[in-house]
């Protein structure tokens, strides 16, 4: 007997919530980046699970997951590069310390 679909969806929802909490509360930009990756992975998990349980006639869900993984990687690479270039100016990756833009 395999695990019912609902449990995976709950797992996906919990992962997404964990990622969102991390992204909103963490001060360290790298930690925020990691939290965002968790949110992405929650969505990717959903895609694969929905594909496997409900729509396994076509490969749409798998394709979506593959593309999402690739896009997430590209995004995190750009994000890391931005964090490093900010670090060169501030000598810190604390998001709360970035206050040169205000109003």
């Amino acid at each position, binding site marked *: *007997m395999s695990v*019912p679909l*609902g449990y995976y969806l709950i797992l996906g929802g919990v992962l997404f919530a964990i990622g969102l909490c991390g992204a909103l509360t963490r001060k360290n930009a790298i930690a925020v980046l990691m939290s965002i990756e968790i949110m992405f992975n929650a969505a990717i998990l959903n895609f694969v699970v929905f594909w496997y349980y409900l729509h396994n006639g076509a490969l749409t869900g798998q394709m979506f997951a*593959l593309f999402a993984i690739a896009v997430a*990687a590209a995004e995190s*690479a750009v994000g*890391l*590069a931005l964090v490093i270039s900010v670090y060169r100016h501030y000598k810190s990756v604390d998001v709360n310390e970035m206050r040169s833009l205000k109003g």
Partner: protein
Amino acid sequence: MDVCGVSNFNVFPCVNDPYLTQYLFVAVFVLVAVLFPLVPLALVRVLAPRKPSPTKNATYECGLVSKGDSWIQFRAGYYLYALVYVIFAVETIFLYPWAVAFGGLSFGAFVAMMVFVLLLVEGLVYAWAKGALDWK
């Protein structure tokens, strides 16, 4: 937790689902696994005498004295390899399904994938030409 009927699509299971009872012993194991380290820690808190001193609070009480911050820095130059690696490692994800289905694909699919690989190579050449791969 009763979430039956939340969705028209019947994706959520019910509490009397045999699936849950089957995993009851896992829940018991989890409970024991959590309690096992917590109980001795709590006992120590209650029973042990507390006399803190600088030597005792050092990172390694009976090892070398640690120096500096634990957030040491690596050479920033390395991050370029990491970024380039992340991109190339993940882009190959598209090569797997293509390779698995290779036998049944048309010539057009082959050309399309070659174009994709060519674009990746172009990225590699660019990184190379810009000196991102030089080991300084």
